[in-house]
């Protein structure tokens, strides 16, 4: 099992939320393939050295959100169906929302005005999305 998850207990974000986001990101980016098995609650808890109930809660919420499905006795798997472009795009949007939201909040804390923040944002867009690049 590749150690593709990391969580940071020191931030203020609850661990189960961090884990949910990590799984969603992995599914969206394809590092977790449809139908692929996730580590067991016990294995992941030991691997990350975190409370097993945290992992269990994350898995429950992921199942509720339709990202994974759990069959008793067999384990938890990434949903093979519905991991279509619709689902993964939604997952990616979730992640992007979190990341950009944090960034905007930071600029606000720095005391920037909205206009100035927007300027800098577009500068960064130009930097990372050079003209002509639409998707990748």
């Amino acid at each position, binding site marked *: 099992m590749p150690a593709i998850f990391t969580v940071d207990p020191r931030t*203020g974000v609850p661990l*189960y939320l961090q884990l949910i986001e990590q799984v969603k990101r992995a599914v969206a980016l394809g590092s977790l393939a449809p139908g692929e098995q996730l580590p067991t609650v016990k294995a992941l*808890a*030991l691997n990350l*050295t*975190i*409370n097993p*109930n945290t992992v269990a809660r994350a898995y429950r919420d992921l199942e509720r959100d339709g990202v994974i499905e759990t069959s008793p006795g067999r384990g938890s798997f990434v949903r093979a169906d519905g991991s279509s472009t619709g689902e993964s795009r939604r997952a990616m949007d979730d992640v992007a929302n979190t990341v950009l939201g944090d960034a905007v909040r930071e600029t606000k*804390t720095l*005391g920037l005005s909205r206009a100035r923040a927007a300027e800098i944002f577009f500068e960064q867009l130009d930097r990372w999305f050079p003209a002509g690049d639409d998707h990748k």
Partner: protein
Amino acid sequence: MNSTYAIAIRDFSKRYGSFEAVSNLTLEVEPGSICGLLGPNGSGKTTTFKCLIGLARATAGTMEVEGAPVQPQTFETLAYLPERSALYEWMTVADHLEFNRRSYRSYDPKRAEELVDLFRLERKKKVGKLSKGQHTAVALVLAFSFRPRILVLDEPASGLDPVFQRVVLDLIIEAASTGSTVLFSSHQIGQVERAADRVAILKNGKLIVDGTVDTLKGSEKIVEAIFDQTVPEVDGLAADPRVRRIERSGRILRAYVKEDSDGIARRLNEFSPKNVSILDLNLEDIFITAVGGEIPTVGGDGA
């Protein structure tokens, strides 16, 4: 209902003469969960553990394990790790294992051997010749060797280097994932942050914080307001029950908030600050704030 909790401590108080070591402590631990007990030295953690397992008697209140006060038979499935070493210095590691083998029906010799190797202990060595950390390691081996359902561990990482501290955490997590309940105290807040479902913080014998790690992180925040001029007098903010304490520095006001950070933020907005933001706290920050310390500054005349 009492019987649903693996460990139920209700209104527990312990007095030594006129000194109240613990007052009105209520703590309930769900089966299969991990509960971390934090607190400065002398805050009553060890006293609580001792009364829970019957080494001392409570002055008031009830303490139950799986629905009943601890009896001799409870120890078939309850393991206790004391704060200071209670091992026999003149006996070897192997002697201690033999002692366990004769004491517990569910003693698992293979498991014991695994653990002895894990902690790199020498079986033939007398305990008196072991380091402090190795004393803890032996006690841990003894505690985990009979696969107890309930574990009460008083500073289980005491004296251990970081590698073994991680091993201890793994043992605790593994125990919980097989359905055992763990109640442990620690000065390593990072450990508790990772592994515990619930956290309880004691200060001077009183419970001052109690909740799941996630809930605490969700409600304990710093509300920071930056003003154009010096910070105005915010009447009664310090007295607000939602606020633990206030810090003022130049144009910045920081309110360490127990709950309802949004409400406090709204209140601060009434004073027209340039900016109000809500900052997260990790468990260590929460602990230090709740226990009421300014972190002591070393050397110089401070700020």
